[in-house]
């Protein structure tokens, strides 16, 4: 059972690391817009498609 001497600190450290990530994400405003980011990634350079559409009479 001596292994828990290592395991418990590892578990607590992992918890603290994810807590740190959470605090960082809150403070950098990532919870301000939960809907937009998912769409923004789709909005990159789809130029050929829009060109085809615009050239239609």
């Amino acid at each position, binding site marked *: 059972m001596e292994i828990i001497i290592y395991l418990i600190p590892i578990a607590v450290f992992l*918890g603290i690391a994810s*807590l740190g990530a*959470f605090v960082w994400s*809150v403070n950098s405003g990532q919870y301000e817009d939960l809907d937009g980011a998912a769409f923004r990634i789709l909005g990159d350079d789809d130029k050929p498609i829009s060109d085809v559409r615009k050239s239609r009479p």
Partner: protein
Amino acid sequence: MTDLALPSDLGCPSRLAPPSRDEESGDLSAFVQKGAGEQSLLLSIRGAKCGGCLVKIEHALLALPGVTSARLNLSTSKLKVSWRGQLSTAKITSTLTELGYGVSAFCEDRTEQSAKQEERSLLIAMGVAGFAVANIMLLSVSVWGGYGEMGEGTRTSLHALSGLIALPVLLFSGRHFFKSAWSVLKNGHANMDVPISLALGLAFSVSVWETANGGAHAYFDASVMLLYFLLIGRFLDARLRRMAHAAAHDLAALQNRSVTRINSSGIAEAVRSADIKEGDQIVLAAGERAAVDIKITRGTSSIDESIVSGESEPRSAHPGDVLYAGSINLTQQLQGSALGASSDSLLADISDMLNAGEQKRARYRKIADKAVSLYIPFVHSAAALTLIGWLLSGASVRDAVLVAVATLIITCPCALALAAPVAQVVASGRLLRNGVYLRSGDALERLAETDHIVFDKTGTLTLGEPVLVSETSNELHKAAKLARASRHPLSRALALAAGPGQIAQDVTEYPGLGLEAHIDGQRVRLGSADWVGVGAADASSGLALWFQIGEGAPVQFLFEDQVRPEAACVLGNLQASGYALEMLSGDRAKAAQHVAATLSISDWRAGVSPQDKAARLEALQQQGKRTLMVGDGLNDAGALSQAHASLAPGGAIDVSQSASDAVYSGGLDSIPVILAVAKRARLVMRQNFALAAGYNLIAVPIAVTGNVTPLIAAIAMSASSLIVTLNALRINLKEV
């Protein structure tokens, strides 16, 4: 920009919102924030609902010269544009309006910033508590799992480790409750945070004591779990309040227009309406809406005061007349001096009425308040009686204290704290999807109680715009040539009925009279009965325009402020579901009677002043009726704040919107939806409180008899909180 002119390209590509047909947003240069070499502008966008809108707006703006970033927040519809160099704000706003979106300037106020801060700190506190719950549970589960087999040394060290994690977390995340409890205790009062702080503090100290003495039961896990659930409730509540505030602020931003002021050196400049001081000289162009009250000094024009008085027919304004904020200047440019709110009797009266209404609403007792006032004495006397009972029956002080603390922990109001906020958050999210903005959470309870609905006429039951009702004739197309040159509502209605076409040359507009032009060498006139020489005897009393070619016989065009197409159906349904309906109008009796007859409202009054409207609602309240007022004008604001609950349409003036509990966009069909959701939310809140009470009825006997172990406390607390949350989600399930 020709490719954008296709109607299908305007506005939201997913058709979630119709393209905006707003008038120009005006000059927004007064709202630009200047940074180091970079300028930025915060805008509120109307009509942006989907990812397509986001991509369309951001790409169009980034294509403008000098724009460095453009980010649209899809959840709040706020757009931040930054640019370098010379780019005019007009170019930015016109790009957006050409895409089919409505634009207005947005400035973040201080309340909003502090609310955002509070929400963030609650979210972080919740995250920290969640971390502690997970880690302590890891240790606790091994203690529970090894019960009877684990040695005392291992158990005590695991408990001590739990305590080490719990202490900083309790101090950090619990500070929200401790601070609030301390501030009310200092003033000799008590709120929900007092029993919470007591339970948290006692649970922790007893656990420390037990750990130090090598005892079997420590409640570190229960105390942080308690904190975690309570913070979820607190966070949801803060978020809802901020959303409600932001929605209200957003609507007020629609009025964030700039005003043209003439400065001391005689030059016209654009300033924010908030910066206008009493006595400033203001220019009001034809078609512009007055942002402040003005005393006219130069110019004569027709003004549309329908939003101020409910009167649907424009009146003519001359130097010396007062023009109230919200009225629209129709024909000629006006100049005037701004009036302070205090010097103005109508606005002062209305703000008095608003204050009276606010005070009345503050006295309203929410379901949650009632529940808390029953709960606190019950729990504390139960814990005290447990302590005394066990001591009397010969238990040791240590055992008696342990059992009493276990009682306090297990009855701690997790489910009670979640019962109302969760239901309110789910209901307001449900309403938001229907285009309804709730202004406060407790509004749902008051909306659910109403039984008597009072409607305003102009703009609420009717479209607020006249529509041509007489037969279309050959003259219509000739008259339309003149009408297209004017912004008068009747001219616009005439032009709309005639469809697109030519505009006559050199149309002259005579305020209060009509239009004149020469077509094919003949003088043509369009305007009032006097303008074409028709005697008062022949003129009918309704909304009408007369048209005359040369000296020929005048032709009459009749108009009507038409009832909204959905009104009859909605009102019929409301009547069928047992609501009493009433109509109060500031308009003439004839116009009101017509609408009342069309909608079969038997109870109606016309020519009612703002004071009379408020008095009528007061009288209805005295009769024991729970009134719901629906209105949009400045003349309804007093009545809206006086009513038990109130609604305003999205086109309403900002005073009316801030006086009401919820604002709906779209038509009257929102009203039955709002009432149904409010009723369902109230039902769910009551069920939740019943569930929380039922939970206590089961838990208290177990605790009082000393059978609660930390394992039972953890299961019971999380189960009750989950049940309450899941029950609230049912509001979303049923379609209205």
